[in-house]
């Protein structure tokens, strides 16, 4: 065990945890103000729910000793034997519990990413059930395939440094399945749904960028030259992504936008994620730039094809993830990471690229099909979508009985009659506020 490595992974875990509130703000700023809390809630609550589920069952399915290349066994159920000493197969220089906790943070943010797609119309109960089940039947197996010793994609030799397939393509294609099942928001295509607070979205972007250093550099599982290289690549991916999207905006609309720069940074981060530990600085810039440009174009597809992906999870995470996974096959370089491989431009031929295609294809197919079926099931039981009246009112009031902001000068007056906190409360019909 190494204290420097341990210090680094503990801090990296904290950074990745911080990304989820960052995502909550990134998404929250983009919806209409009547939906800001509901949107934030769908990220924040994942911190609670997934943390607990990960300990109980998720981790062992993902990283328990391999069963046939597809899933982990139940040795680590309830974090049994996940202790203070290293598990050499997983990470030799840090406590096993530290590795498991680091992975927990990835498991939290991945389902949270999906929520951007069905923002502004999802029932909270449906979301909770979906997140819990999706973690177990989609995320845990995917993580096993790609990252666990014995996982079939890992064995195949496809590369995914920090989650291009497991996190981004997985969440992105699940998002597509989700919007196909759930349908469009009232008013989609007729007018714009203008972001209600872009400063919140920028803050979220800043936190995501900051936390992503833990996500990518932490995936080196130690404080070493590889971590340093991945750290740099991460920053360059974000930076070049921001520049790329800004250039597209500037060409198309004759001006750059802050939402474009923020979106571009995230797109660049998504694209660099699978490649971060396999490429040098100049390829990292290229990957970020291409990610930014392609995603800037891809977010327009929803208008053309008519699916209502509210906050562009498909356009950014699916498309950005694809860009990154495939470009890893192009730019990966053994000179940067000898545990990696040489991609097309490093003289490795089409071998790696082919494996990347297989990994991507398997992820797309598996995640789309299982997610689609899961959502159909939930729709038929608990239900996925708020009523039209609730959608008009906003999910904050309709689903959570709260409002995001209350700035009025005479705000103290906004509520006058307190129901007796315990007893009387139940008499007021909770749906009363609907149809404002």
């Amino acid at each position, binding site marked *: 065990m190494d204290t420097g490595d341990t210090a680094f992974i503990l801090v990296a875990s904290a950074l990745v945890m911080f990304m989820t509130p960052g995502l909550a703000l990134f998404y929250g700023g983009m919806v209409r103000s009547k939906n800001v809390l509901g949107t934030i809630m769908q990220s924040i609550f994942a911190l609670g729910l997934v943390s607990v589920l990960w300990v109980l069952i998720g981790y062992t399915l993902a990283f328990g000793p391999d069963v046939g290349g597809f899933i982990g066994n139940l040795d680590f159920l309830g974090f049994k034997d996940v202790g203070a000493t290293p598990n050499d197969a997983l990470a030799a220089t840090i406590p096993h519990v530290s590795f498991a906790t680091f992975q927990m943070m990835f498991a939290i943010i991945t389902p949270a990413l999906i929520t951007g797609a069905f923002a502004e119309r999802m029932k909270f109960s449906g979301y909770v059930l979906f997140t819990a089940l999706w973690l177990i039947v989609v995320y845990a197996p995917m993580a096993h395939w790609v990252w666990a010793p014995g996982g079939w994609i890992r064995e195949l030799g496809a590369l995914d440094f920090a989650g291009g397939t497991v996190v981004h393509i997985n969440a992105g294609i699940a998002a597509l399945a989700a919007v196909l099942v759930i349908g469009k928001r009232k008013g989609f295509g007729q007018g714009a749904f203008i972001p209600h607070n872009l400063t919140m979205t920028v803050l979220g972007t800043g936190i995501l960028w900051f936390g992503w250093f833990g996500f990518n550099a932490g995936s080196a599982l130690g404080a070493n030259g590889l971590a340093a290289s991945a750290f740099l690549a991460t920053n360059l991916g974000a930076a070049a992504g921001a520049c790329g999207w800004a250039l597209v905006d500037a060409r198309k609309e004759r001006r750059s936008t802050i939402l474009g720069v923020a979106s571009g940074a995230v797109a660049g981060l998504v694209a660099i994620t699978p490649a971060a530990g396999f490429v040098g600085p100049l390829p990292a810039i290229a990957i970020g730039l291409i990610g930014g440009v392609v995603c800037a174009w891809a977010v327009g597809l929803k208008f053309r094809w008519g699916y209502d992906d509210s906050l562009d999870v498909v356009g950014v995470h699916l498309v950005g993830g694809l860009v990154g996974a495939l470009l890893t096959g192009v730019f990966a370089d053994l000179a940067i990471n000898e545990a990696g491989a040489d991609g097309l431009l490093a003289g490795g031929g089409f071998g790696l690229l082919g494996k990347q295609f297989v990994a991507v294809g398997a992820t797309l197919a598996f995640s789309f099909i299982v997610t689609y079926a899961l959502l159909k099931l939930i729709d038929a039981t608990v239900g996925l979508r708020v009523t039209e009246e609730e959608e008009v009112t906003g999910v904050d*009031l309709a689903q959570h009985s*709260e409002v995001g902001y209350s700035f009025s000068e005479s705000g103290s007056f*906004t509520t*006058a009659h307190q129901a007796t906190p315990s007893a009387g409360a139940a008499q007021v019909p909770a749906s009363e506020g609907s*149809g404002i």
Partner: protein
Amino acid sequence: MKIVVAVIKPFKLEDVKETLEGAGIHGMTVTDVRGFGRQKGHTEVYRGAEYQVDFAPKVRLEIVVDDDRVDDVVKAITTGASTQSIGDGKIWISPVEQVIRIRTGEKGPDAL
């Protein structure tokens, strides 16, 4: 001339604007307001206690029109704003003695 003031549900603003345009009215002034009336506000929960909010958010429209357009305007608003449920709002009409367009100084119906 008259001024028609209407207090309606916020999410009906777009429909009302369309019915008004249908009636040939292209100008109005809109304010976010809070309405107190038969319709009670929503319920909020704050750390485990439920509270009744007294008001409902509304938007208030002001439209200055020539006397002979008043009925059309009222009809357009009624059509656009109605949901047949409590809290749809009210319209009231008051006299206006003069209207001036600031840019040109035009007065009376020409200023609309």
